[in-house]
């Protein structure tokens, strides 16, 4: 019973495809791809609408207010109202803008964000696009975001847009290194770039109790934290929303966008966040695996969504808690702390592998990470730099 619920979507797709039984092979192939695309868009656009209102409500609760509660029950129809508002707004294109580039930037950024969703396994046998090298695909396609942001900044022909785009690209480039290098230990340990294999490698339980997720090994935990922080930067969210800091440069590269194009940017940002969280779930949190053997009766895609939701909640929580960082602090953090730590994760994973992958390896890799972490904190002298600022003239 639980197995058939688990495979419900897979069976439904096969049933739909059985209607095309007599047609040539390529028709079935195209239909299969179209069904995948349709499902991906349907699920993630709904999730986008849901998260956009939930984020406002959670943030509001953190700030002692109610948040949107006028449209529909608990304000849940707020995204529909927002969508209608965005659609009927005037679409303004600056007179001196580079019209083609200005138009193509939101298209490219949304297309890239949606493409990256394709390689993530959402459940047992539920990967929309299986490719040998899916992780590389994710980053290869995702790297086009930088070009899209630049196009938005350049095409608008506006100083704020250009500055925002420069900042965005600077921070994306700097944090792409720790993002990718923190994935390498997982790839190394599994010996594959295919997301399905990585999820399969995290099946089972140690002592029949603790799931074998990579987040429960010292190197995996460190890499997971590095990956999540870098992912936060890549999706331009607070506390790393320097490129669109409204108190400094209006809205960064989105300054000259209005109406539906702005909504597209907004959507791409959220979908990028879903993609990064989904990849973090796949790489470190065991993908669609259940956290305990008893809980395996709950379908795999539910577990994936639960983990994704938990990560998204942490992202919203961080946004509600931390103020915006300064760009120089961010750059220093990326190059002086994140990158060495990411390299350390590779070494720690190798130590873990060669010390039998058991308890001994666990302890040794913990030692490696702890030593490098302490050395880095002493070298960088974090206490002096991040101490509360002394106001000499304010009192």
């Amino acid at each position, binding site marked *: 019973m639980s197995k058939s619920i688990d495979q419900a979507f897979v069976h439904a797709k096969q049933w739909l495809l059985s209607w095309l039984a007599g047609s040539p092979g390529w028709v079935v192939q195209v239909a299969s791809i179209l069904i995948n695309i349709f499902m991906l868009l349907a699920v993630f656009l709904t999730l986008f609408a849901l998260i956009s209102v939930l984020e406002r409500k959670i943030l509001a609760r953190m700030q002692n207010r109610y948040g949107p509660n006028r449209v529909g029950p608990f304000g849940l129809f707020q995204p529909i109202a927002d969508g209608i508002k965005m659609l009927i707004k005037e679409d303004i294109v600056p007179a001196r803008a580079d019209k083609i580039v200005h138009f193509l930037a939101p298209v490219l950024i949304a297309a890239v964000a949606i493409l990256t969703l394709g390689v993530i396994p959402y459940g047992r046998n539920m990967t929309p696009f299986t490719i040998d090298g899916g992780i590389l695909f994710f980053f290869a396609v995702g790297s086009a975001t930088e070009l899209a942001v630049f196009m938005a900044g350049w095409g608008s022909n506006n100083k704020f847009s250009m500055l925002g785009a420069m900042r965005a690209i600077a921070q994306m480039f700097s944090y792409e290194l720790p993002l990718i290098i923190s994935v390498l230990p997982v790839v190394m340990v599994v*010996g594959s770039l295919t997301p399905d294999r990585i999820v399969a490698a995290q099946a089972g339980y140690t002592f029949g109790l603790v799931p074998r997720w990579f987040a429960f090994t010292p190197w995996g935990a460190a890499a997971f934290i590095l990956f999540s922080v870098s992912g936060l930067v890549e999706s331009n969210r607070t506390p790393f929303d320097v490129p669109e800091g409204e108190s400094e440069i209006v809205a960064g590269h989105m300054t000259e966008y209005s109406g539906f194009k702005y909504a597209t940017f907004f959507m791409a940002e959220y979908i990028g966040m879903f993609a990064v969280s989904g990849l973090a779930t796949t790489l470190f949190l065991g993908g669609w695996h259940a956290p305990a053997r008893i809980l395996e009766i709950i379908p795999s895609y539910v577990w994936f969504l639960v983990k994704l939701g938990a990560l998204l909640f942490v992202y919203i929580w961080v946004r509600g808690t931390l103020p915006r960082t300064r760009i120089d602090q961010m750059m220093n953090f990326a190059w002086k702390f994140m990158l060495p730590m990411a390299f350390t994760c590779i070494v720690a994973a190798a130590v873990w592998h060669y010390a039998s992958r058991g308890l001994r390896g666990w302890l040794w890799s913990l030692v490696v990470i702890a030593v490098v972490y302490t050395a880095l904190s002493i070298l960088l002298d974090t206490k002096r730099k991040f101490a509360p600022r002394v106001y000499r003239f304010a009192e």
Partner: protein
Amino acid sequence: MSSAAFVIISIFTLAAALAAATLRKLMHAALSFAVALVGIAAFFFLLGAEFVGLALVFIYIGAVAVLIVFTILLTRRHAGKDRGFNWSGVAIAVAVFGGLTWSIVKTQSLSIVAPHVPALTVKRIGQALMTSYVWPLQCVGLLLTAALIGALVLVMEEKR
């Protein structure tokens, strides 16, 4: 390997490449270059070299294209437009294309259909890189480091 996909990709790639070579506005040319690279990556996918296609997209669109647009941004003073067009270059390019095509068409041994080869997995590429190609790999690493430092030294502020 279907010919419909081949025709579509080649028209797409060559059109984008031609746009990159001839468009007046620098920024448009650089973006067309990125589009042409996507086309070439599609060729690699068609030929079964998925890893190389992904690496091409990753390196060229994620890094080289962004570098090019950044350079355009940093060096625009005269409205970023190209001044002249050297027509003798067109003649040379057409002559080279004619010569190459003539020699390719004349060579009979080239009109072969692809044999059936097992799919090239990333694992096999990785094993090859780490066994027989380990020296070239290290040399490329050294070269990239040298290029990184060299590029930094070149663009550093000059002391007067």
